[in-house]
């Protein structure tokens, strides 16, 4: 495999199927660099290449990430719902037992860390753990399987060009997905803080900590410093939470893609040892995301 085609292969595998708005007068290029068409009005369309996806700006959706994340989430919720519907105090059957053990595991984690009373945090942790685990699990599917299937389907039935058939099936290798979850967690942190300590308490925590003093003048002198420090610490939580998951999964996915690019059809042999290691990463990252969420939320509720 030639170097340029290998790098193209890798780039293709790292691109998302993006649906977004291209501005008026935008010149669409084919993969040779020739202008194919100039848009007369701003148009919602699938990006044909990486540059178009960038040019769409914020008004774009990664259809593959959202579809896989949503699909996996729906499957997860259906399984939970099946268990919840049949949940009795009697002897659980095999599948129910398995699901209940997951639920008990999550429940124990929550009980160990979070000492407040909340109806939200346990189901939240359950969803985070299971959903992130399932999304990460997509990493173990051979990297070419679904993209090739998708490419074949789109080329055969919808007349797409093979180059525009981007398809990533691991939602957690998309920073949008992980950051969306971690910033949702940040909103919950703020919400929990406001609920536990009032809005004044939340603002006070931002403004008068970590440098505390009883002197009123010093207090206001220290305010900008405190504000900067606490805002950074508040923002660093979701950023680190989201980027940690993204980074781990992206790196793992990258190794799979490299192995696939190097070994072609024989990638199964090369990918297998990494897949075995990766099972650990998948579970660990899902667990870490859940535990940190619980820790952040309990920090938000408790006095410190």
């Amino acid at each position: 495999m030639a170097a340029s085609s290998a790098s193209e292969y890798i780039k293709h595998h790292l691109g998302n199927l993006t649906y977004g708005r291209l501005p008026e007068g935008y010149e669409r290029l084919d993969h040779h660099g020739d202008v194919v068409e100039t848009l007369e009005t701003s148009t919602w369309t699938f990006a044909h290449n990486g540059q178009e996806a960038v040019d769409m700006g914020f008004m774009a959706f990664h259809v593959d990430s959202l579809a896989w994340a949503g699909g996996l989430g729906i499957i997860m919720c259906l399984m939970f719902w099946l268990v919840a519907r049949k949940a009795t105090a009697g002897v659980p059957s095999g599948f129910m037992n398995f699901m209940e053990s997951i639920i008990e595991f999550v429940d124990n984690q929550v009980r160990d860390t979070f000492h407040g009373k909340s109806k939200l945090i346990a189901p939240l942790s359950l969803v985070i753990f299971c959903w992130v685990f399932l999304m990460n699990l997509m990493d173990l599917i051979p990297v070419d399987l679904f993209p090739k299937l998708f490419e074949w389907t789109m080329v055969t039935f919808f007349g797409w060009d093979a180059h525009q058939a981007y398809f990533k099936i691991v939602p957690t290798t998309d920073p949008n997905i992980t950051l969306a979850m971690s910033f949702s967690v940040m909103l919950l942190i703020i919400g929990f803080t406001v609920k536990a300590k009032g809005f004044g308490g939340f603002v006070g925590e931002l403004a008068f900590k970590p440098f505390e003093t009883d002197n009123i003048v010093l207090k206001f002198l220290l305010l900008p410093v405190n504000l900067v420090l606490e805002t950074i610490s508040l923002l660093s939580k979701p950023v680190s939470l989201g980027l940690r998951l993204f980074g781990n999964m992206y790196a793992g996915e990258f190794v799979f893609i490299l192995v696939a690019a190097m070994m072609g059809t024989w990638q199964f042999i090369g990918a297998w040892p990494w897949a075995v290691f990766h099972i650990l990463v998948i579970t660990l990252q899902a667990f870490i995301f859940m535990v940190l969420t619980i820790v952040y939320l309990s920090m938000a509720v408790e006095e410190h």
Partner: protein
Amino acid sequence: MNINATLIGQAIWFALFVIFCMKFVWPPISKALEERKQKIAEGLSAADRAERDLVLAQEKASSNLKEAKEKASEIIEQANKRANQIVEEAKDQARTEGERLIEKAQSEIDQEINRAREELRKEVSALALSGAEQVLGREVNRDAHKQLLDDLAAQL
């Protein structure tokens, strides 16, 4: 790797799944688990109680058995005593009966002797009377000599 509106889409998915689990998944399952925990605890305490009951029942059974044994031996003893008593009584009765029989026989013998003596006396008196008649050659007036005859008979 662009940051775009996927953020919003994913946040909506996230919220939907969390709300779904909060409303429809977590409450029934945690309730069921809680109920099961309680049921198991009740079962365990019932087992404990049953074990205690068993021990009590065993104790009671053994004490009952002991009591029954004591009672049985008492009854046997009483029966033995009673039997001895009966035998004793029977012996006594037999002895008294024997004595009574002997006495009766003796009295019958005495009566017989008396009767025989009486008859003998009568006969003797008659004999004596006839002898006397014969001696005197005449009839003795029985009524006139009744006193005399009776005295004679008494002397015999």
